[in-house]
């Protein structure tokens, strides 16, 4: 199920619309327009695909077909704390797959998806360059080595607690 648009998304769509309308037409524009849309929103919701499709007078199905071919396009919003689980050779051998599964279960989303509150998203990445610490996962910008299923719970909890704390402080000031 696609996540509903946030107010921010809608704002971005509004600014995107005239930009697309002012762009040249023709099939060769498909990828540049998709890039423009993703730059504006950070991802490609259906509404953005529609803008591009309608501008080029092709179907939305076709636009999705082309966009989904490329790794650079994403169809779910990036989470505020993107979880990147390393699937490089070393991490794979050390059970990276199990770590991924643990994040998926804990956050109740699949790889490539984003939680409803948009706090987390999960993706798999190739070797992040610290194989000695395998298996490795990044939560936001922070790298966590020697990952174990028992650590997953703690990491997620920590992010959520920090967020609560920040919200409380914001409410007090």
């Amino acid at each position, binding site marked *: 199920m696609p996540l509903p648009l946030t107010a921010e998304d809608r704002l971005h769509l509004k600014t995107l619309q005239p930009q697309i309308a002012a762009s040249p037409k023709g099939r060769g524009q498909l990828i540049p327009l998709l890039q423009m849309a993703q730059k504006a929103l950070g991802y490609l919701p*259906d509404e953005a695909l529609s803008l591009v499709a309608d501008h080029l007078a092709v*179907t939305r*199905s076709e636009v999705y077909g082309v966009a*989904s071919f490329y790794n650079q396009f994403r169809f779910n919003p990036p989470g505020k704390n993107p979880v990147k689980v390393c699937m490089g050779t070393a991490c794979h051998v050390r059970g990276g797959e199990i770590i991924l599964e643990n994040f998926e279960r804990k956050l109740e989303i699949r790889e490539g998806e984003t939680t409803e509150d948009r706090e987390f998203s999960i993706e798999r990445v190739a070797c992040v360059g610290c194989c000695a610490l395998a298996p490795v996962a990044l939560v936001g910008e922070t790298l966590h080595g020697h990952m174990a299923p028992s650590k997953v719970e703690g990491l997620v909890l920590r992010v959520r607690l920090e967020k609560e704390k920040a919200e409380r402080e914001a409410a007090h000031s």
Partner: protein
Amino acid sequence: MITLTADNRTIQAREGSSVLSACLSAGIYIPHLCWLEADAPADAPAACRLCLVEIEGFREPVAACVVTVENGMTVHTGTETVRRLQKTALKLLLSVHRVDCKHCPANKACALQNIAKFLGTGLGCKPFERVLKEPDVDSRHPVLDYYPNRCVLCGICVRVCRQRHQRPLLSFARRGFETVVGCFDADPVAAADCMSCRACLESCPTGALVQRTVVKG
């Protein structure tokens, strides 16, 4: 007309037609999955790699759907090499296939079953590992269910949809092992006319496209 030899028979074919179409018209069967009757050699996607034949003067076996007939050509459709390659091509297709014919609407009218029978092999994929997609059913099309693990990605549904409609609905998506076909439009109105067309359903060589039975709740 062009005159050529296929399996030691002299046959005739229209100029510009493919070796595949020439042989099929002459009653010489060559397994094929991704070819449409009207395809000229330049139109054929040559995706399934099943229609391989040996042609004298060619170094290697070739896909018969993309080779244009020539006067004096000598074609062999059933050599040992050809059969071995065809069996491998079929096994590769079956290695990404959930073989569950009993529960499949295509059972007994399925191109894969027919080709397996013709080649004298079963529906197994040994020695290849079986790799299946998830989920088993994709319901993104407003009125059709798509079973990726029955689809051979022949592209016929996408092509017939394009031929019939100015604004075709079906398209390929993703890539590699994850390639699927389908309708990726969030607006169900887009598919309002699908059930009066049914071209894709009827031309699918397997049971990958099924009309969704709506459970009224």
